[in-house]
């Protein structure tokens, strides 16, 4: 038998082997650290590799496994997006502004994963402050799509998706403000889940847009995503917007099947602008669901055409406020040679932020300015209410909604970065979910003529994670056999 390549395992299969003592936790972690050393210079997923921490955690995980007390994540090597704080580990948000920022505390979600025995291999690349859809706005490096190194991995959680797709981690924690988990998962051919707003604590996630941000899992399979979600979900006393939900096992829900499931397809999501290959993969998925006993139909959601502008107004407005704290006074980058507070703030921000971040701050500041507030920010909030209501109405009729995750497959590095509007419009299928606070998962549903992965999005009711997991898992089984 050929030697087992442990980096190709899933969380579930690695857990089974660890539990049966067929592999060891330290040996598993070493395999990933070796692969990172060998391959990541090409993929460029990691910003910081925590080899020492990882090996220490792996040793402790093995002890727990030996003592019979290890859970599903015990000994599982994962990567963490670089906007999720871990005490003592540099957290940059891929920005020059936080080049030397070492958090004095650990994010709740990261803490829960580590408490469950997971091994943190390192912090992975992203768009600067999670603003972008290609990981090209990172101050540090450009992460490549493992399916084609000339293409982007998507973003902003590009490092999370690329690390999982390239077998550089078994799973990852990303964050999703307007599609930042689902879109890179689709581009990289992995599974990405954005939980219901409030299911996962945001404490320790460096804020981009507070009313939209959620931490969620990126993994190779739907089941692995569910295993991660089981650990990170649940009320947290340090996040006043996190919500108490009944104890449930998401991992147990993935095999429930879709017989009798009512699926809605927003007609607006199949309209012009959608790549033919993507459209045909999505329609093929619909046929698979029908073959499995689900009922699918198209319906109208007219408010969706306003989702992208509303999203960019709300997220930029909140970002302009959230990012004001980077003034050079307390932490992070500070510009040299300043004579006054005003000059210090202005120079620090001019030199510390990249172009895309500045663009969003300016847009958001403008949208909130007196005299413009009613026309922009307030209008966007009204659209938000409208979109929420249309989703509520849709869920009176359907159990889940499906759509493409992205209008195209992964594009070339450099292809769109000079054209922000094109990039923004590509968020058309993902942002409405954040605006409405709903859960959604992207699962691979095929490939285009260049063998680039295509993702299908399944959207659920608030706290309907079990519904979207079973729906995604059914397609995964149907397509992969």
């Amino acid at each position, binding site marked *: 038998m050929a030697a087992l390549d442990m980096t190709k395992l899933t969380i579930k299969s690695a857990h089974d082997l660890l539990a049966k003592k067929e592999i060891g936790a330290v040996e598993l972690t070493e395999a990933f650290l070796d692969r990172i050393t060998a391959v990541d210079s090409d993929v460029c997923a990691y910003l910081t590799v925590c080899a020492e921490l990882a090996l220490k955690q792996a040793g402790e995980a093995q002890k727990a496994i030996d003592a019979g007390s290890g859970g599903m994540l015990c000994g599982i090597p994962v990567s963490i997006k670089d906007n999720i704080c871990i005490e003592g580990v540099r957290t940059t948000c891929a920005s020059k502004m936080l080049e030397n920022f070492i958090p*004095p*505390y650990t994010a709740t979600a990261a803490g829960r994963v580590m408490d469950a025995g997971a091994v943190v291999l390192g912090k992975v690349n992203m768009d600067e402050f999670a603003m972008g859809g290609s990981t090209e706005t990172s101050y540090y490096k450009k992460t490549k799509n493992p399916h084609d190194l000339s293409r982007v991995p998507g973003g902003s959680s590009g490092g999370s998706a690329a690390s999982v797709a390239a077998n550089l981690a078994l799973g990852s924690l990303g964050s999703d403000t307007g599609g930042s988990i689902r879109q890179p998962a689709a581009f990289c051919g992995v599974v990405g889940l954005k939980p219901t707003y409030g299911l996962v604590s945001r404490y*320790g996630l*460096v804020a981009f847009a507070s*009313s939209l941000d959620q931490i969620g899992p990126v993994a190779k399979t739907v089941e692995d995503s569910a295993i991660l979600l089981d650990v990170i979900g649940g009320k947290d006393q340090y996040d006043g*917007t996190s919500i108490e939900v009944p104890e449930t096992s998401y991992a147990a829900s993935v095999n429930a099947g879709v017989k009798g499931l009512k699926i809605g397809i927003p007609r607006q999501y199949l309209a012009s602008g959608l790549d033919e290959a993507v459209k045909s993969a999505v329609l093929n998925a619909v046929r698979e669901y029908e073959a499995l006993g689900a009922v699918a139909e198209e319906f109208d959601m007219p408010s969706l055409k306003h989702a992208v502008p509303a999203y960019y107004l709300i997220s930029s407005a909140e970002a302009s406020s959230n990012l004001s*704290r980077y003034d050079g006074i*307390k932490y992070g980058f500070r510009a040299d040679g300043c004579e006054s*507070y005003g000059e210090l703030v202005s120079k620090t921000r001019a030199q510390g932020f990249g172009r895309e971040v500045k663009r969003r701050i300016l847009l958001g500041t403008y949208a909130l300015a*007196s005299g413009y507030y009613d026309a922009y920010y307030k209008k966007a909030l009204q659209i938000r209410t409208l979109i929420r209501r249309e989703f509520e109405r849709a869920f009176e009729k359907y159990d889940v909604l499906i759509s493409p995750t992205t209008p195209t497959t992964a594009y070339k590095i450099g292809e769109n970065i000079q054209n922000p509007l094109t990039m923004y419009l590509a968020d058309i299928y993902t942002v409405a979910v954040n605006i409405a606070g709903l859960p959604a998962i992207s699962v691979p549903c095929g490939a285009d003529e260049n063998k680039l992965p295509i993702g299908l999005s399944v959207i659920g009711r608030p706290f309907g994670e079990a519904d979207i997991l079973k729906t995604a898992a059914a397609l995964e089984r149907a397509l992969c056999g």
Partner: protein
Amino acid sequence: MPYLPTIGLEIHVELSTGSKLFCGCPVSFGGEPNSRCCPVCTSVPGTLPVLNRAAVQYAIKAGLALNCEIGLFSKFDRKNYFYPDLPKAYQISQFDLPFCLDGYVDIELNGEQKRIRIERIHLEEDAGKLVHDGLDKYSLADYNRCGVPLIEIVTKPDIASAQEAKAFVEKVRLCLLYAGVSDCKMEEGSMRVDVNTSVRPVGTDELGTRTEMKNLNSIRSIVRCIESETARQASVLDSGGRVVQETRRWDDNKGESRAMRSKENAHDYRYFPEPDIIPAEFTQEQIEALRASLPKMPHERYLEYTGKMGLPGSDANQILESVALADIFEDAAAISANPRTSASLIIVEILRRLNDMGLSPEQIPFDGAALGKLVKMMDERQITANNAKKVLTLMFETKDSPDKIAKDNGFAVISDVAGIKSVVSDILKQNEKAVGEYLAGNAKTFGFLMGQCVGALSGRADPQVVRAVLQELLQKGQD
């Protein structure tokens, strides 16, 4: 030309909750710089505010104490501006839906009542403090105060003089003290006042342009600042100038103000709803429960004290100055059924002793029940007024009840007339000469004999009884 001032106030009051508004750090005054902060107060990336429910209750109690309507749906908003004492570069405050609206306070000035309306009271976080090196080389930030819960009380422009402003601030302070939501120590900055002043010629209705004076921290400076600003604006107008809408800084040492920031340079705070804190919703029942939990307010107590309890207004006000005194008074009056003696013991005896010992009313070591018991003992002639004062002194020193102190120290009144007679009779025998003089018609010697008797009884007998006995026995000698 004579002018009339129109004044509106914004009063910032720090709430005396145990912990800060959005984290568990303690709320207290002084201490080492940056010793009471955590990643939340210093806005370390990724941290989130978690609302302190007690602070919300305090804010609503403050509103109820100041006769406000309480909004059943309230939310927080972000007020965005850059300043080094504000780590997040935004202050979490309330913009359009504050907890409390439309209140009022009645003040009394020169025997006349006036109602000052309160527009709103909102809850927000305090900022830190900057310490300057004095050489303009650097400034240091102390974040201890960051996140301390603060209410801002905004009045309507109903105040027409410095004295009205003084009366209003004093009344608000007293109400908040009674509500138990703040220590209102102006000297420690837990109560700070912004004053908006404009003047208009007598006989006109249209309000003039206003100026704002920020962060006044004593009643005296509020009064001086209003008087100075009223005069300054009047002289600007009289000399044909125009008052500029601006923020001015009051210099209490010089007794004058100077311009700080004009309206043209005013901030655009870009308020928007705070996404990290879910809006607060209350039921009318919850509000009523908070109302029921409030102690009686000072004006209500004033009416009781000066009404059925029969105290003069000045005495009532003196007791009402302190919640501790008022509570002791009410308990003592209830137990003794003698409010006037209870009040006079507090005002004359207790306040003098507190003053001598350098204590505050909160530090009185006995409760109102003990004081009431003492008053009752006096009324029942178990103890003389003179000895009651001695008992009171000892009540500050021991934890004993007044009757035990009286008993242990032999202060209890000898109430049987036979006992008194035997003592008086002995005195008369020892002072035959004086008795002789009295009997010879020298009435003055009665006082001497009376003094001897009282002395021999060491104050333990009712002087009126002693007098009667003495008269009786002397009468007998005459016969």
